[in-house]
Structure formats: structure tokens, C-alpha cells
């Protein structure tokens, strides 16, 4: 590699990190505005036009906030925890393809799974074990919350930290199974290849409808979003693991949570919704190349693919906010039951479906739709089973209480 290449890569890394953090800042505004609308309020609209400077105002406030380190805290771990939380959230982005802008100026190379003649600056790097990298990084993500809970030396923090780490590891299994079924469908661990194989409209959600549902539930729990946000259940745990955190350190936890949310949405798009593909994208690339040459063709292709990707991600983020506004929080025992007794068995079942159907029916289109049907039936059955929660026998209902005379 020559120096120019390395320079471009370094710039690319910093630009993407900056872009992700900016996206985080505006996601907070987006969420507050949408939540406000869903609750018939207006939301923050004073700072700048339509409240667009609100993230900046928040940042300034957090910068000047006094930072209190509790005297009882384990200081080194207390200071380390926010950084440990943020770093995994950021480095997941290394393998996510946000689009395809080929710096070798040939848009068609984007469709090539072998990556010959492709230098895509809209993906930091494509690893041949990309999916496993994502899982490895997610599994490291447990530490930030756990350590914060432990180091604060506060009972609420400790409870929040322990709760969350048990939650995260439980749902990691379901997440692993869901992603595994995607890997099985496409026979590759490279995120770029997974995206290229979804060309032509047969997006991952068709063969992996069940995988998608599992992924969405598990991923929501993995980023501790509502309805799985037991970590910071205010009514019972005050602030949860970050009770004793303030100012910039608190902001870093907040940042980690939201960046992870964007990352899992981006991964959902990559695995199940065709990544940066969009109907008519290849025609656009061809026409622009014919009209204005390969350089313009690649640039237009790159920008449009990036736009398509971001649009899909925003849809997912909106759904996440919508869910937060609509659903109540789960109880902890129900949460663990859902993870271990529903998601994990169904995830394993999905692996069996995927294997058997793909081996029996080699044709891509047919087996995709067969799997779609199987997934839909399974989901219907699972929902039917889960309709009535079974009463707990060691609880006395109010109407059964015998009052002493």
C-alpha cells in the first residue's frame, strides 16, 4: 500500500466515526420529536430552526456540567467503563457496507462478490469473517454496562448492571442463531457478499422471515431498548447502571446505546433488506455511465446507494421509536423466559428449516419462498401459543384473599 491509500483509509475511518457520532446526535433529536408527536406533544423546537441545534445545545450543557466521582467508587474502573461501552459500539461499523462508491471507477464491480477491481470507500473493510467479527464485538459490548454497575458502588447501579449483563448474554444466543441462519442462506460470512447476493429483489427477509423476527427481538434486547430496557427501569432502579454517572461520562453511555441502535438497524438492513440495493439502481448506474463516463457513473451510483441504505435505516429507527412509545416494559422473569424458552428454541428450529430446505431444494427462488412459508407458519403458531400467559400458582389473586373476621 502506498501512502496515498493509507491516507485515504485514515481519513475514511475518522470521517465514518464522525458521521456515526453525528448520526447519534441527531437520532436523539429525531427520537424526542417523534416521541413527542406520538404523545401529542411538540418536543424540543426552540434551539435553532425546528430545534435542529438541540443536539449542540445538549452537548454544550454536558461539557460544562460538573462531574462528580462518587467517593466510594472504584475509580479506575469507574472511569474506564464509559469508554469500554462506546468503543465496541463504534467498531462494529468496520464491516457494515453503507453503500458502494468504487474508487476504481467501475460501478459494476459493486455487484461482484469476489471484489475484483473494487475499492469501496463506503465500507471500511470487508473481512472474510465479517459476521463473526460483528458477533465478537457485540459480545464484548457487555462489559461497559457491567463494569459501570459494579464500579459505581451503588445498589441501583449494581442491580442494573447485573440485570443487564444477564439479559445481554441471554439474547446474544438468539441473536447468534438468527444471524447464523442468514449466514447459512447465503453461505458466506462476508457482509459484502451477503449484500451482493441479495441483488435482484430477493432480499433476505424472504428466505429468513423467521430469522428477521428473531433478529429484531434479540437485537432490541441487545441494545436494551424498550420494551427490553429493564436496565434503566426508572421506577425500580432509579437510573440503573448509570445512576452515579454524570456529564460527559453519562453522555458516552447514552452515545453507546444509540450508536448500537443505529448499528443493529444497519445490520438488519444489510442482512434482511438488501443493504444498499434499491430497485433500478443498476439501470441508473448504467445510464449515468453511458451519459457522463465511468467516474460520474460510480459517484452517482455510490451516492444513490448510500441514500437508499440510509433511508432503510431511518425506517428501522422510526419503528424502534414507535415501539418505545407503544409498548410497556417486560417483567424480568418474562424477559428471561422469552429469551431462553421462545427465541432460542425457535432459533434452533429455524436452523433446521434452513438446512433441510436448502439441501432438498437447490433452486434459490423456490427454497426462499418455501422458507418464507415455513417461517410465517411458525410465527403464527408461536403467537397462538403465547396468547394467554399462564397464571403463577404461588401468587394469591386479590379476589381470593381471605380476610380475617
Amino acid at each position: 500500500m502506498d501512502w496515498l491509500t493509507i491516507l485515504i483509509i485514515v481519513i475514511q475511518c475518522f470521517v465514518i466515526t464522525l458521521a456515526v457520532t453525528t448520526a447519534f446526535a441527531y437520532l436523539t433529536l429525531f427520537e424526542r420529536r417523534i416521541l413527542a408527536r406520538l404523545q401529542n406533544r411538540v418536543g424540543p423546537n426552540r434551539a435553532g430552526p425546528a430545534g435542529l441545534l438541540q443536539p449542540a445545545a445538549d452537548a454544550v450543557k454536558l461539557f460544562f456540567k460538573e462531574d462528580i466521582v462518587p467517593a466510594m467508587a472504584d475509580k479506575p474502573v469507574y472511569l474506564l467503563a464509559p469508554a469500554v461501552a462506546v468503543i465496541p459500539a463504534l467498531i462494529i461499523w468496520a464491516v457494515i457496507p453503507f453503500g458502494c462508491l468504487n474508487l476504481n471507477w467501475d460501478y459494476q464491480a459493486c455487484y461482484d462478490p469476489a471484489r475484483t477491481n473494487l475499492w469501496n470507500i463506503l465500507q471500511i473493510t470487508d473481512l472474510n469473517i465479517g459476521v463473526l467479527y460483528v458477533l465478537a464485538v457485540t459480545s464484548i459490548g457487555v462489559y461497559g454496562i457491567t463494569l459501570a454497575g459494579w464500579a459505581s458502588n451503588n445498589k441501583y447501579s449494581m442491580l442494573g448492571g447485573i440485570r443487564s449483563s444477564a439479559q445481554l448474554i441471554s439474547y446474544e444466543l438468539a441473536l447468534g442463531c438468527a444471524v447464523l441462519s442468514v449466514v447459512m442462506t447465503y453461505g458466506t460470512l462476508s457482509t459484502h457478499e451477503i449484500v451482493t447476493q441479495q441483488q435482484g429483489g430477493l432480499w433476505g427477509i424472504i428466505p429468513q422471515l423467521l430469522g428477521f423476527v428473531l433478529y429484531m427481538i434479540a437485537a432490541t434486547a441487545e441494545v436494551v431498548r424498550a420494551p427490553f430496557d429493564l436496565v434503566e427501569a426508572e421506577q425500580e432502579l432509579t437510573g440503573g447502571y448509570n445512576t452515579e454517572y454524570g456529564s460527559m461520562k453519562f453522555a458516552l453511555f447514552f452515545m453507546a446505546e444509540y450508536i448500537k441502535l443505529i448499528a443493529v438497524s444497519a445490520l438488519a438492513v444489510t442482512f434482511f433488506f438488501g443493504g444498499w440495493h434499491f430497485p433500478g439502481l443498476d439501470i441508473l448506474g448504467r445510464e449515468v455511465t453511458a451519459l457522463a463516463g465511468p467516474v460520474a457513473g460510480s459517484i452517482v451510483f455510490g451516492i444513490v446507494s448510500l441514500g437508499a441504505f440510509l433511508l432503510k435505516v431511518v425506517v428501522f429507527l422510526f419503528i424502534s421509536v414507535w415501539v418505545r412509545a407503544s409498548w410497556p416494559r417486560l417483567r424480568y422473569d418474562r424477559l428471561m423466559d422469552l429469551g431462553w424458552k421462545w427465541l432460542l428454541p425457535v432459533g434452533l428450529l429455524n436452523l433446521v428449516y434452513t438446512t433441510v430446505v436448502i439441501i432438498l431444494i437447490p433452486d434459490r427462488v423456490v427454497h426462499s419462498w418455501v422458507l418464507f412459508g415455513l417461517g410465517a407458519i411458525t410465527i403464527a403458531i408461536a403467537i397462538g401459543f403465547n396468547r394467554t400467559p399462564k397464571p403463577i400458582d404461588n401468587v394469591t389473586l386479590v379476589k381470593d384473599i381471605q380476610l380475617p373476621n
Partner: protein
Amino acid sequence: MELILFLITALIAIVGAVAMLVSRNAVHSALFLLLNFAAIAVLFLLLQAPFLFTIQLTVYAGAIMVLFLFVVMLLGAEKVEDTPDRIAWQQPLALLLGLALLVVSVVVGLGGATNPPPESEALIQFSDPRTLGALLFTDYLLPFEVTGFILLIAVIGVVVLNQRGRKI
């Protein structure tokens, strides 16, 4: 370049391990061990085994260390107590065994353990997950299934632990 990277990672691994041993707080020890695991993961990467790199991170750093932390936190046993060591004979034995391991590794390292050339067949097989998978399910099938069985026994162990002190 590769040598420099190796030396840095190896140094981090050793520092992590030593700090883990001398730390007086169990959670700090666990964190130093985590550092050590991460450094070892990078060493796997330098050996061109990316699959092992991710396994090291996911299983050791992501699962087993979480378990360690849980044990330490759940027992509330962070601080090392200054009670007399009840298994005092372990320390000299551990030193002896460690010394023996060092001698063996030096002998093996110096005495003609042949490193595979950088482009050997085994290396290529290990760096590509697809060939690795095919190998695991053909040539190394028996160890693989045995591993599965051992894990099943571990599951039973978990259940047994859970049943202790409760009527079955």
C-alpha cells in the same frame, strides 16, 4: 513490521497476565485477564487464523470472562482477604510446573520445531472459514462431535448445580 506487532502484542499479553496475578482486587484481575485474552486474539490474527481470533474474542472474552465477573460479583468476593492460605502447597507446585513449562517451550522453540512456511497448505485452510468448516465436518468430525458431547455433559452439570439443596 509483523515482528514489531508480535512483540507489542506479546508484551501486552504478558503484562496483562502478570498484572492479573498481582492485582489485589478480583474484578481488576478479571479485567487484566480480559486484556490478556484480547492480546492473544490478536496473536491468532498474526498467525493468519481470523476464525480463531473471533472465537477467542467471542468465547473467552465475551462469554467465559463474563462468567468470571459474575462469579466474583455475585459472591461479593472482590477483595482478597488476608486469611492464611489453606492450600499453601499449591504455590510452590505452581511455580515448579510453570518453570517446567517454560523449559519445555524453550527446548521446543529452539530445538527444531519447524514453523510452517507462510504460504503452507495448512495456513490457507485455516484462514478461510469455508475450508475450515469443510475440514471440521470431514477430517475432524470425531473431535467435533466429542466436543458437542462434552458440552452436553456441561449442561447436565449446570442442572446438577441448580438442584443442590433443593428436593428433586
